Every structure is written in C-alpha cells, then in structure tokens.
C-alpha cells in the first residue's frame, strides 16, 4: 500500500505549522522525515495516521491492503505507550481483542511477534520491569501483531541511550529484511535517518515545508555505522539543516 500527501497545510490558531507538503511514500520503503524541532513532524505523522485533520490538503491511501491486515496505519510512539497494568503479552493482546482474536489464535500471533522481537522469555513481565529498549521492542511487537500496511514511527528511539539505539536500529533493519514494510520514520537524529531511510525528507523550520528529498540507494543491510557514503549524506543533511535549526532555536526563545 502506498501513501500520498497532497498539498497539506496546517495552522494551529494563528501559528502556521505546515505549508504545502506533497509527498509520496512508496510501498515497502522507509521514508525518514527530519527537521528542526517544532517544524511539524509529529503533526504531519498524526495526519498520516488519521489522528488529526489538516486545515487543507489530503492524505490518500493507494492500492490494496495486505491480507490479514488488522490496522493498516499503525503507530510506534516515542514514549512507548504501553499499558503499565498489562504484561508484555497483555499489551500485545490488547490490540487483538477488539478484532475478536482471542484464545488460541491470539496466542499464535503473540508468540510469533514476541519471537520476532526476541521477547519470548519476557511474555509475563510488566512494563516497569523492562529496560527502555525492551519496552520499545514490546511496542514494535504490538505494532507487528496487527500486520500493518504502514508503520508510523515518531522518534521511536529518542528516549533511549545511544547503545540501545544502535541495537534497536539493527533490530528494525533485521525485521525489514525479513519482511519489508512501509514506514514513515520521524526523527531529529540524522544518523538514524541515513541508516534507516530509503528516502529522506528534510523539512524547513516552522512553517514546515519540504526543503529537499534525498534518496539513498544503498541496501539497508549493507549500511554500517562509520560508513563513508552514509557520512557524506549525513554531512549534506546537516548542512541543509544547520541554519534552519539555529533559526528555529532562536525563534523558540522569542516565542
């Protein structure tokens, strides 16, 4: 399934947040959205997921949903959004229950996604017993359980320390390698963007509009930390963003 954004603009009261965003998210690819903080990345992602409506423009889905897809547009949140009163498997089962999947069918799906995220041994643990990286893996397992057409990730690694972030990036790459998924990945971390993105969209400061779209052809599996090509892309991104980030920073002080 493919997502298309057509001329999206948005304002909150007097503040113009996004201006004329048109973008297409190809099937089976990861599109990273980078930009200075406050430029409207999270807002854009909420539009794509149908959690909010833009003042102008449309979000379109094109093509068929994959078979067995329970929730085509599925989020992974920065702060994990796990129910603290449910165990790891309970958190996954939460999103199946409303589809009438219970008992043996549910167990099959839960076992499968926990295995894919290496959480099988922690099925009965409560979120407070888990480390940050494990919590985010539970959130990923929960998202995989509904067999999504598009994963929407809002800074999924930003709450984690840098070592855990590396590990989870490897996990995401491994999951994508096993079964390529479509994803929109919002981040302010350029290293994450060049590691995970097939396409990187750079937004300007508020009001956010598209400054540049960069495609990286190198397969995900071949991208390693310290890779020279990637460093060059990262440098290029940083040069695009530096002035914007500086200006955005100054703006927040005045606001």
């Amino acid at each position, binding site marked *: 399934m493919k997502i298309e954004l057509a001329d999206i603009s948005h304002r909150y009261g007097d503040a113009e947040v996004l201006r004329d965003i048109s973008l297409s998210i190809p099937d089976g690819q990861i599109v990273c959205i980078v930009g200075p903080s406050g430029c409207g990345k999270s807002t854009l992602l909420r539009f794509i997921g149908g959690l909010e409506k833009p003042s102008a423009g449309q979000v379109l889905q094109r093509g068929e949903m994959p078979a067995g897809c329970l929730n085509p547009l599925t989020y992974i949140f920065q702060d994990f959004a796990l129910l*603290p009163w449910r165990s790891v498997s309970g958190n996954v089962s939460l999103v199946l229950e409303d589809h009438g999947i219970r008992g043996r069918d549910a167990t099959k799906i839960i076992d499968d996604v926990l295995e894919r995220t290496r959480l099988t041994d922690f099925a009965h643990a409560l979120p*407070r017993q888990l480390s940050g990286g494990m919590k985010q893996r539970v959130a990923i397992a929960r998202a995989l359980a509904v067999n999504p057409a598009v994963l929407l990730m809002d800074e999924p690694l930003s709450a984690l320390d840098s070592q855990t972030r590396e590990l989870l990036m490897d996990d995401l790459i491994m999951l994508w390698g096993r079964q390529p998924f479509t994803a929109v990945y919002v981040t302010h971390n350029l290293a994450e963007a060049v590691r995970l993105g097939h396409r990187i969209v750079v937004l300007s400061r508020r009001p956010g509009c598209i400054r540049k779209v960069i495609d990286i052809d190198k397969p995900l599996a071949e991208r390693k930390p310290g890779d020279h090509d990637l460093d060059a892309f990262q440098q290029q991104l940083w040069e695009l963003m530096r002035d914007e980030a500086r200006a955005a920073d100054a703006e927040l002080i005045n606001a």
Partner: protein
Amino acid sequence: MPEQGVVREVAFRGGGFAPKTRRRVGLVVFVALIALAEWGTRAGWISALTLPRPSDVLQTFIELYSSGLLFKHLVPSLMRLVVGAAIGVTIGIGTGVLIGLFSYIRSGLVPLIAAIFPIPKIALLPLFVIWFGIGEGSKYALIAFGTFTPTVVATYGAVDNVDRTLIRMGQSFGLTWFSIVRKIVLPGAMPGILSGLRISLAIAIILLVAAEMLGAEYGIGAYILEAGSLYDLERLFVGVIILSVLGVVVSGLIGAAEKRLLNWRV
C-alpha cells in the same frame, strides 16, 4: 602544586523528607495513651467526669458483647453503611467518569458538584425523611449522598490524569470507544479513584451517626447518641471506639484492594 591546609570531610546534608513505616510505633502510642488514662483515673488526677477509666470502658464493651446487643447494633449499622456507600460510590464513579469524558456533562455538572459539596449533608436529613420516609430509605440516601460528592471529584480528577498518549495509542490501533474506556481510562484512573474512596468511606462512617439520629432503634450511631444524651461516658466511648475500629478496617480493606489492583505500580 601539592594541596595544603586543613583536611575536612564533606558534611552530610542529604537525608530526611522520606518517612518510612516503623512497625509497632503506632501501637506503642496507643498503649501509652491508654495506660496514661488508666493511671490518671486510678490515681485521681483525672476526674471520672473528664474521662472514663479505660478498664471500665472495656468492661462495658464485654457486657455489650455478652448480652448479644453488640451485633444487634452492629449489623443494621453495617447494612446502612454498605448499602449507602455502595449506592453513593457507584453513582459517584459513574458520574465522575462521564464528567471526565464529555465536555457538555463536564460543563453542566462541575459547577453543580462544587455547589453541593460544601453543604453539610446532615442539614438535609429532614428533606431526606420527607423524600424517603423515616425508615431505612432516608438513612441510605444520606450516606449515599455524602459519599457521592467526594467520589465524583476524585474520579473525574483521576480520569483527567490518565496519560493521554495511552488514549491516543488506543485510538491509533482502532480500539472501540468502549474498549478505550474499559481497558485504558478506568485502570488508569484506578489509583486516584481508590485514594478518593478512602475519603468517601470515612465520610460514610461519619454520616452513620447522623443517619441514625432519627428513628433508629438499633445501630452504633443510635447507641452513641443514647449514651451521649445520658452522659454515660463509658458507653459513649465504646461506641466511638467501634466506629474507629470500623474506620481502620475500611482503610485496611482499601489498602488490600490497592495492593491487588495496583500491583503494576512502582
């Protein structure tokens, strides 16, 4: 340059501000106070009119128990407490959740709740008698009404405090409205609801005495009021102590419920 001059250990200035439960200290305070009263009343520096002798109070209690009157008083009181509080708490939690979820209900009811909260419910007893009769109905109504307002306020506060990102998460996975309320809002509000319940149920016990002021032959409240009107301090104290114990038991029950329901908290 090598360091010179005086060497001092860095003074400790952390600590404190973290009270812990020390077992038995509470008991020691109780025992000491009772022993003091016993000694004072025996030695004569507390006159019998000021304070009854603890051993006499105990004697009165034993008499009450062995005459079988204890349960004759206790059972109707517990009945009133349970029925009244159950009605008040149920309607209170329901109303609180609705206020927490719907703008119109919130705007309509919050000022109303603020207006009825400070009314001493005892003052309305005559009204309840007219509405619900002199029998059990008016007693249930008084206790229910008294527990209703604090429960509502605690519940909608608790619902307001439920993590919005969890609700967004539920919506983003396409959960139904009813599922979000049942599986996210209610468990998330449970800590606040339970701590509100501590206050509501204590108020229910306070109102028990008021409820039994009119036309109750048996009941702890009736027993206390009768003893009070006769200035029978021993019996008055027996009744008051039963209410205290009731309060401790209720608080213990809520504590147990918190342990069971909120074991997910850190």
